[in-house]
């Protein structure tokens, strides 16, 4: 499939198309919890949704947290404004997510989204609802966000394309921030062409975000694919087997080269140090009186008031605030935070060097989708280890794309392709080429015409 957006625009729709589709979405959402809010008034254009940390005027945007329950933005994020600018896209709703983006499986929120292929399994996170909605609805794209793999991971587990652009190429004005030096807004779609259409719509300079500085996007095709052998050895056997078959297939057109990178393997700990340090400062602004969940007793003493108000944070958010605050303590900040920045620098240089000559390809996740009940049993450190492949490109702000490449026991597998800063079109082109010989399959096709 080249582009669902183009196909949709060329097909005559029945008069009651949107009414019927919205009814279908509401019904299916009862099982999968992809949407937190459904816009029942969508009546024109191609549907798009936004992750619940991207502000859309008039729609509750809670970032998956009780702390922001009831918060209705009085303004649009720049990406929402740009999607709505020409009236060819219509907003269908706000999608579920891990609280403030804290999760790999989508389970760190009150009511988690469920995998679109089997509701007993995790949807992936943190942009869980965006991926599930994209896998549920045929003519739909979602504007999502990634800090350490939050687009790639759920995209892989729900069999959709998840594109995370170069850091700084898409404005983050109106994004509820998690970690400013890592957050990136990207796209989930059913085809690479649709991801490109949306990327072109939302990217580019924005006076409201001074970090949005990357304007030139290239498409420099590479003929070499690098595979990190020692990292691949940490993936489970089923994933390794399927990935080896993918490499065999790609080796007809590309030079597949196995390399080792001791440096990239060390990315997880520094990533979490930086992410938690930044998150703990960003979450300090939730105080229970300006917006979001309101504390009721304004006559309590200052400290008691704030401590009561902040009870709304979930367990993972509390852990990350405590850890981030600890890491920033004067006595240990050089040991952890400064060291993490130095490792980030080292990893970026090493990846930059490799990516000048070729792409880096890996499985998106080291495992197939676990059941929700099994994922809940993992310790935080076991959870963080699942980000083995998604963290290096996110830590360095490199563009990457997860695309479906196989199905095991009826569940999709995703591979992740990484390229150098600003070469975003090259990986979109790569996946377009892949899609010409591999059909993605879905359990649901709501809105099919």
């Amino acid at each position, binding site marked *: 499939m080249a582009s669902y957006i183009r196909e949709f625009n060329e097909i005559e729709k029945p008069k009651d198309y949107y009414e019927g589709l919205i009814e279908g979405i509401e019904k299916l959402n009862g099982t999968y919890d992809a949407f937190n809010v459904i816009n029942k008034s969508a009546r024109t254009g191609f549907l798009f949704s936004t992750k619940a940390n991207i502000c859309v005027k008039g729609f509750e945007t809670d970032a998956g947290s009780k702390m922001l329950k009831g918060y209705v933005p009085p303004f649009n994020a720049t990406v929402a404004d740009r999607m709505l600018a020409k009236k060819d896209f219509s907003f269908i709703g706000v999608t579920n997510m891990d609280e403030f983006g804290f999760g790999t499986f989508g389970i760190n929120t009150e009511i988690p989204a469920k995998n679109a292929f089997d509701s007993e399994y995790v949807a992936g996170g943190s942009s869980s609802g965006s991926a599930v909605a994209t896998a549920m609805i045929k003519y739909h794209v979602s504007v999502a966000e990634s800090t350490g793999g939050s687009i790639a991971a759920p995209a892989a587990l729900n069999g959709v394309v998840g594109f995370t652009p*170069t850091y700084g190429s898409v404005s983050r004005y109106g994004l509820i921030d998690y970690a400013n030096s890592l957050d990136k807004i990207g796209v989930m779609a059913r085809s690479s062409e649709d991801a490109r259409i949306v990327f072109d719509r939302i990217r580019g300079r924005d006076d409201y975000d*001074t970090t949005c500085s990357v304007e030139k996007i290239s498409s420099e095709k590479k003929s070499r694919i690098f595979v990190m052998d020692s990292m691949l050895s940490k993936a489970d056997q089923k994933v390794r087997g399927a990935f080896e078959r993918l490499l065999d297939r790609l080796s007809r057109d590309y030079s597949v080269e196995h390399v080792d990178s001791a440096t990239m393997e060390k990315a997880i700990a520094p990533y979490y140090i930086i992410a938690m340090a930044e998150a703990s400062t960003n979450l300090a602004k939730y105080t229970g009186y300006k917006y979001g969940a309101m504390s009721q007793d304004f006559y*309590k003493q200052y400290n008691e008031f704030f401590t009561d108000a902040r009870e709304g944070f979930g367990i993972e958010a509390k852990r990350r605030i*405590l850890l981030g605050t*600890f890491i920033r303590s004067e006595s240990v900040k050089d040991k952890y935070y400064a060291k993490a920045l130095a490792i980030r620098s080292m990893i970026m240089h090493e990846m930059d060097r490799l990516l000048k000559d070729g792409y880096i390809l890996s499985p998106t996740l080291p495992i197939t989708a676990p059941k929700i009940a099994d994922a809940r049993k993992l310790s*935080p450190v076991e959870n963080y280890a699942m980000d083995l492949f998604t963290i290096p490109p996110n830590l360095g702000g490199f563009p990457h794309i997860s695309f479906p490449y196989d199905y095991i026991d009826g569940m999709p597998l995703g591979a992740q392709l990484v390229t150098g800063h600003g070469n975003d079109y090259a990986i979109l082109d790569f996946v377009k080429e892949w899609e010409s010989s591999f059909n993605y399959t879905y359990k649901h096709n709501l809105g099919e015409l």
Partner: protein
Amino acid sequence: MEDKEFDRLLKITRLRVSDGERSMIKKDVEQVIAYFDEVSAVDAGKEQERYPAAIPGRFREDVISSFADVDGLKRNSKMRNGYIVGPKL
């Protein structure tokens, strides 16, 4: 981590944990810090990258602009006499 240090963190972050959560979160925090200790063994040099891309520090024009939906802004807070109600000092 000593109880005293854990309590200090709770105090400065204005977080409260139930008795049941306390032992679990404290244990998790200790495990994660032990995991973070891995960074000490990495010889990474002195260069520190704060952002993945160069931030030009370009600011928008310093002009007064009106915010379109002031009422929408107020609806997210508890208001009294045109002011946002906050905690007692």
